[in-house]
């Protein structure tokens, strides 16, 4: 300890002119407003800005100068023996020198600020920095110390004249590439979690700098302790330590990423489950081993496939449920991703992956189709042979087998494409509507004939009204449009947009469905109770089923025998009930105390695509009876037979 302090004192003593220079510099901010004849508010601002710039440049210059000369000057002029021929341990020498230099750097930042701090009331511009002005100064100091370590390492590498220095660039490039590859591996699992973090880019910089600082400190110590007076050995040890530590860190990172990416389903804390098409596939999302997981899971076979969660931008399942496709960001990515993670995550060109949902164990294959960044939605043809990519005013069709663009259809005007689906493998239905909410709105229906390469408008509907919801029938030939402001529900033909029936709501609209027989079911409630109204396809009232003094929270998918599961919650207490509405006999039956229907689909534009009685209609969240309202398991429940089986337990 005595030796350490003696070395530190010597370093400071030899460079005491730095303190004098800093003291002289500290006067400049006071002089600047006088020289420039400023007055009023301009004076403290000019003073503060000058002081900050001075402190920053002075500190940075000092950090570089000290880093470069601290050990290197004595090493290359063969004067390290002065210390090593004396009873000073390598650790004391190393720590003493860096302590002395660190003190000078910190003094170099703080001293130029002192008169300004004393005159004004702190440094208002730095107060915006999280943690206040002192935190900003401490952060700057820490970063300058890292800068000093980097300068030191560079100076050793360059001035030791060792041949290894040539490999330094190679090793550096390898580490940067390795780090980048690791980043790409981890981004899918970290991205969504990072979005919840304030200033992820800043944090990433802090962590990287921290790792670098630890590695550089370790390397400089090992180099000095192992090389002592020999510049080349000092450099060799530094080289070995820096690159093996960084390489090791990256290798560990890769091991970690492999561990994370192979998280078994049982280790995933599932946060959401949505049906992915009619055939019983679900999309699970959750956190496993500290990272985000996005998994395509087949409830019938238990097969699953992990999706690169952070990179998947859009998903689609074909109407017939035979194929799923998703667009994910290509792996050739842009470093600015890190900085865009806060908003919507990364953007860029996307490639399309296609997975057969019929062949359960077949992994997804990468198609040759490449989508531009402006695509915001995709649709898949029956059988998964064609893909429609939807942009603001363009719909492009790709042949997935060849990856070729087979057609592009442009829309003009101030409306944009809101929805599109394949009616057959060669016919696409496209809807176009206002981009902004207004007192009235219009919806256009178009038909694309892929064989004829033609685009034709088939109907247009203009309505007054405000907030609305659109629900498609499972066969997609009709649309249910609920106007929540006017309290009106209209059923229109998808092709012509002709209004088939108009129904006045009897209460607050909760949910609705167009039944497989064409009839209409609307869930409504008021403050006291909830009920289901049944109408014929023409809109004639067929009856009302009272659901009691409970909230209707979710409408499930129609079963093969016309049963609709409805989840009810007690008005006062967290009691859950699943009831079945029989749309034929207009009766109600209690199904279970502990089941909730899954949200119907994973498609972002509109749910409710699932045909009556499909496998997905039998999937429910299971609750612990009388326990937590959070789902505990995924349950297959057949409303027709009452058969119940847990597919995934302990969510």
């Amino acid at each position, binding site marked *: 300890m005595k030796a350490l*302090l*003696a070395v530190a004192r010597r370093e400071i003593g030899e460079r005491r002119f730095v303190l004098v220079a800093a003291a002289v510099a500290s006067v400049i901010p006071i002089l600047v407003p006088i020289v420039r004849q400023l007055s009023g508010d301009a004076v403290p601002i000019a003073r503060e800005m000058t002081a900050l710039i001075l402190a920053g440049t002075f500190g940075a210059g000092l950090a570089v100068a000290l880093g470069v000369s601290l050990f290197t000057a004595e090493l290359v002029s063969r*004067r390290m*023996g002065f210390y*090593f021929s004396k009873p000073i*341990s390598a650790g004391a020498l190393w720590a003493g020198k860096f302590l002395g230099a660190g003190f000078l750097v910190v003094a170099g930042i703080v001293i130029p600020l002192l008169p300004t701090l004393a005159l004004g009331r702190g440094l208002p511009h730095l107060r915006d920095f999280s943690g206040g002005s002192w935190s900003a100064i401490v952060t700057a100091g820490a970063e300058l110390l890292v800068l000093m370590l980097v300068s030191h390492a560079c100076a050793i590498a360059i001035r030791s004249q060792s041949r290894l220095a040539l490999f330094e660039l190679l090793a550096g490039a390898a580490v940067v590439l390795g780090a980048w590859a690791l980043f790409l591996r981890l981004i899918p699992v970290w991205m969504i979690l990072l979005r919840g973090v304030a200033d992820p880019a800043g944090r990433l910089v802090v962590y990287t700098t921290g790792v670098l600082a630890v590695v550089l400190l370790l390397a400089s110590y090992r180099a000095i302790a192992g090389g002592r007076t*020999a510049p080349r050995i000092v450099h060799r040890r530094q080289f070995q330590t820096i690159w093996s530590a960084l390489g090791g860190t990256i290798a560990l990172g890769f091991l970690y990423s492999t561990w994370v990416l192979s998280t078994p389903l049982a280790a995933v804390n599932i946060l959401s489950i949505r049906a992915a098409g009619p055939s019983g596939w679900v999309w699970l999302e959750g956190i496993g081993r500290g990272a985000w997981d996005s998994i395509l899971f087949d409830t019938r076979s238990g097969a699953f496939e992990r999706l690169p969660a952070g990179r998947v931008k859009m998903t689609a399942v074909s109407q017939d449920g035979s194929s799923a496709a998703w667009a994910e960001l290509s792996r050739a990515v842009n470093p600015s991703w890190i900085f865009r993670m806060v908003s919507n995550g990364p953007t860029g060109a996307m490639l399309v992956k296609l997975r057969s949902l019929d062949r359960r164990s077949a992994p997804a294959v990468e198609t040759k189709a490449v989508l531009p960044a402006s695509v915001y939605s995709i649709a898949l043809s029956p059988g998964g042979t064609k893909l429609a990519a939807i942009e603001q005013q363009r719909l492009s069709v790709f042949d997935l087998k060849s990856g070729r663009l087979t057609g592009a259809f442009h829309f003009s005007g101030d409306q944009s494409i809101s929805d599109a689906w394949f009616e057959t493998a060669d016919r696409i239905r496209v809807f176009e509507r206002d981009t902004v909410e207004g007192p009235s709105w219009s919806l256009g229906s178009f038909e694309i004939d892929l064989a004829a390469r033609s685009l034709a408008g088939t109907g247009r509907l203009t309505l007054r009204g405000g907030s609305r919801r659109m629900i498609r029938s499972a066969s997609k030939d009709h649309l249910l449009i609920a106007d929540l402001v006017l309290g009106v529900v209209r059923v229109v033909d998808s092709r012509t947009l002709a209004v088939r029936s108009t129904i006045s709501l009897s209460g607050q609209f909760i949910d609705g469905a167009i039944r497989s027989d064409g009839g209409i079911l609307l869930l409504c409630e008021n403050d006291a109770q909830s009920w289901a109204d049944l109408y014929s396809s023409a809109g004639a009232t067929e009856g009302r089923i009272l659901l009691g003094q409970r909230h209707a929270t979710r409408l499930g998918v129609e079963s093969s025998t016309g049963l609709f599961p409805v989840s009810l919650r007690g008005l006062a207490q967290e009691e859950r009930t699943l009831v079945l509405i029989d749309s034929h006999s207009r009766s109600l039956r209690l199904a279970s105390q502990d089941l909730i229907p899954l949200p119907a689909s994973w498609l972002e534009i509109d749910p409710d695509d699932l045909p009556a009685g499909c496998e997905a209609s039998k999937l429910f969240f299971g609750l612990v009876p009388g326990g937590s309202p959070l789902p505990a398991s995924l349950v297959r429940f057949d409303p027709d037979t009452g058969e119940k089986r847990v597919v995934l337990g302990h969510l």
Partner: protein
Amino acid sequence: MTGETAVSQATGRSASDAAPAEVRGLTVRYGRAVACESVSFAVPAGGVYVLLGRNGAGKSSLVRCLLGEQKPQDGEARLFGESSWKHRARLLARVGVVPEEPDAPPAMTALQISNFCRRLYPAWDAESVTRRLARFGVPVKTPFGRLSKGQKGQVLLAMALAPSPDLLVLDDPTLGLDVVARRAFWEELVEDLADRGTTIFVTTHDLAAVEGIATRVGILKGGRLALDEDVEPLKSRFRRIRYANRMTETRTEYGNELDAFDAVKVQVRGWGIDAVVSDWTDEKFARFRQIDGVEGAEADALTLEEIFVAVAGEEPAKAEGEKR
């Protein structure tokens, strides 16, 4: 008579201790170039060990290894019986060092260096430093970098002696010094020897100066230790033999008259043969003179310098000149 008591104390104490400095199988390489190849020797306590060697013979590498400043590729350097690489900082508290090149920071004055060192050693005789420097007129408040080479040497010797070390390691300390500075340096050293009986390990080209001081000599040649011996037996076994070599009618053999000796160097001169032998005895010489045709044989003892030239094969002064 403090000198006498100190000398006997030093010799008395060190007998039981491990050698103050020792190297065992020391090998130092720089890439493919070999500086030392399995060099072993020990510096006896209280003795003055002089390591000689031509320029680039590996002396400085060896000194750096001995001081724990450099790690040998093989073998071990020890100070007071412990590895100097592993326990350098602790062991060096008992060692004073004068390096080959003055290595103190150029901006520090002698006074500042003394103040710096004072915190490092258990005992520091700051007064002796100022006294010594005053005696040689070395300014204590002038930055080290602005002192003359001789003054730098005096400063470093003063610093090396101030902690009253048990061992002094001097790596060619008078290299580049003029005659006056050189004499002053060695006189200082002899006085310290008399006062404390410090063990000294020194590498030097200044053979004349160490002739009277050395108790043991090592000669490094091509990285190997060609010689490691106490000075007295060494000087008693080396002789220069000069003789005229004549053909006589009765002579049957010619040119093998020196076979009884280990002749390390044989030169043919106009007047006859000039040879240096390393295993001289009176008896062998008596027999040598009886050889038919050997005439006017004379034997002279050699100085250390002459022995060095004979063993190392080059004039030390010339080597020194090359170095500058």
